[in-house]
């Protein structure tokens, strides 16, 4: 009797599930690595989601999902619960995304900053943040008095190393004496640790603080110590009004809107997107007038040149730390090289943690 009841209950639930699925409206899911209130990386993805929601498309998000086993569970859950398009917004979701995509061929997946598209329903997208880093390097090289730039790095992946290299190359161009000091914190988001790292760099003579982590803690430490800083991922100006020279802003909204509409209308196709200043996926917050109008003009010009393709962040000759040539004179690094970048350029101190 009991078994019969259980069986019928299961089949009823099954039918219910199917019918719900069949009638389900179009839904988009988002997986975030941090809290939506980080005012950095995740905050900007969330802004993108808001733009999709504003179109009247139903969206769901899950925040603070650790990169690892939990991520797969969350992505699978979203796919199972009738989401048609799922954005997974951190590098560490790369394998889980592809794994789940295999089991759900009808669901579309969009993975940020990764390179694996193992199934035809997985697209990848990223922004050319390094173009922003080039602008930062230019300003840093001009503004530093101690010739020491402090850089808080998260994890030794190509995206982070590319940023360090782009910044250093641009800074060297305007100031051959600069040194880049790097502290690896091995986290994307830990305000306490990030502020300790910023303080350590300042104590060791850095008068420019740059971060490839997501909280606003480093710029606040810089503000207190009276050194220059740059915001990361979103405009952090109000956290350090005197110290911040500009912020690199990730603007995902147009891409999210475009891809959501495509998926809803059935025109979604697998692709690999890498947009920069030109397309507006990377934008710069207003420049701090404290750096002087001449420098602001210079940087604005450089920004235009990078956007138009007249200038490139990685223009040869570029050497690695040992002096081997990476990019020949007059040439620019191709996207393949940029995507897999795993060596420091000449002038960066220390080794990449392995």
């Amino acid at each position, binding site marked *: 009797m009991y078994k019969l009841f259980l069986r019928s209950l299961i089949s009823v639930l099954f039918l219910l599930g199917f019918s719900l699925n069949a009638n389900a409206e179009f839904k988009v899911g988002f997986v975030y690595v941090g809290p939506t209130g980080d005012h950095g990386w995740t905050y900007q993805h969330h802004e993108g989601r808001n733009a999709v929601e504003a179109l009247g498309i139903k969206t769901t998000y899950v925040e603070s999902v650790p990169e690892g086993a939990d991520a797969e569970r969350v992505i699978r859950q979203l796919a199972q619960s009738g989401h048609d398009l799922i954005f997974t917004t951190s590098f560490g979701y790369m394998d889980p995304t592809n794994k789940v995509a295999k089991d759900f061929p009808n669901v579309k997946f969009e993975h940020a900053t990764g390179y694996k598209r193992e199934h035809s329903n997985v697209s990848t997208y990223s922004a050319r943040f390094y173009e922003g880093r080039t602008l930062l390097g230019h300003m840093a090289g001009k503004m530093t008095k101690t010739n020491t730039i402090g850089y808080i790095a998260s994890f030794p992946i190509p995206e982070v190393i590319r940023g360090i290299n782009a910044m250093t190359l641009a800074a060297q161009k305007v100031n051959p004496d600069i040194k880049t000091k790097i502290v690896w914190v091995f986290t994307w988001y830990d305000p306490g640790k990030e502020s300790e790292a910023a303080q350590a760099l300042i104590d060791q003579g850095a008068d420019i603080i740059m971060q490839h982590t997501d909280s606003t803690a480093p710029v606040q430490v810089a503000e207190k110590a009276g050194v220059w800083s740059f915001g990361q991922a979103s405009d952090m100006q109000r956290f350090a009004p005197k110290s911040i020279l500009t912020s690199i802003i990730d603007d995902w909204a147009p891409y999210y809107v475009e891809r959501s509409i495509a998926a809803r209308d059935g025109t979604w196709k697998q692709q690999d997107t890498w947009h920069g200043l030109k397309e507006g996926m990377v934008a710069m917050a207003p420049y701090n007038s404290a750096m002087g109008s001449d420098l602001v003009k210079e940087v604005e010009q450089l920004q235009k040149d990078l956007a138009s393709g007249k200038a490139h962040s990685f223009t040869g000759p570029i050497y690695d730390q040992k002096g081997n040539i990476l990019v020949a004179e007059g040439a620019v690094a191709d996207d393949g090289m940029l995507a897999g970048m795993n060596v420091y350029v000449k002038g960066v101190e220390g080794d990449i*943690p392995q």
Partner: protein
Amino acid sequence: MNFDLNFIGILIGAIMASSVPLILAASGELIAERSGVLNLGVEGMMIIGAISGFALMIVTDNLFFAVIGSMLSGLIISLIFGLLTQSLLTNHVATGLALTIFGIGMSAMIGKNFVGIPGKEFPLLLDNLKESIPFLGPIFFGHSIILYFAFGLPFLTNYFLKKTKTGLIIRAVGDSPTSASNQGINVTLVRYSCILYGGAMCGLAGAYLSLIYTPQWIENMTGGRGWIALALVVFATWSPIKVLIGALIFGGITILQLHMQAAGLRIPVQLLSALPYIMTIIVLVVISRDSRKIKLNTPTSLGQIFYKEK
């Protein structure tokens, strides 16, 4: 690395500042554990303290209210734990874990409206002396009042537990609640008080983070410090002075490894990042080798539910 005396002073000052939340939370938890209560909710109470302190500072614009309020909120949250474990006799471990999860979620909810607001400057004592006296200046001056309190607390706690009657009662309850109860001690009341005190200290530890250390509210800003404080209590074998030493070592290596990286020392970074944990464990194991002393300090009834015979 730069090794002049003044720089070492700055370094020591930074190490002291980073160990404050650990000292406060661990000292509070230590009292609770000495009474036999294992409260794994430290992280949750800290994060509630952090958001309450910050929210009160924004709303009332008064740092005194903010600090007192953070302690009160830690206390209120720990009261939930007290009600569940002492009055309803639930399992300590499960309840404590639930408290942490609850605290993190609750703080994120309260904090929604306080994200992105820059904090207020917290007054630092004798900040001018910090610059003018080399070496000793940055060690002794230019800190918040909470830091001085935190550094006095382990000694006060030690004196309290060893030399006062109330301290003796707490230890008696922790070692043998049944005998203590037979002596006419109200075990439940003693444990309640210790839980509430622990909650208040954890709240203060959280407020230190959101008001002074990184003056802002960010979700999850305690970043696991509550768990480290919990571990410190065990590794320090329930001795307040060793808690202080452990917290300083932990803070010390954390700060030092960042400086070693910034100085470009070629040591594997992953090893450096793991160093605070490894060193703290090693040192505390070494300083607590005397097994007799450990037995003397260990609350025998830790985590056990006390049923009063009626």
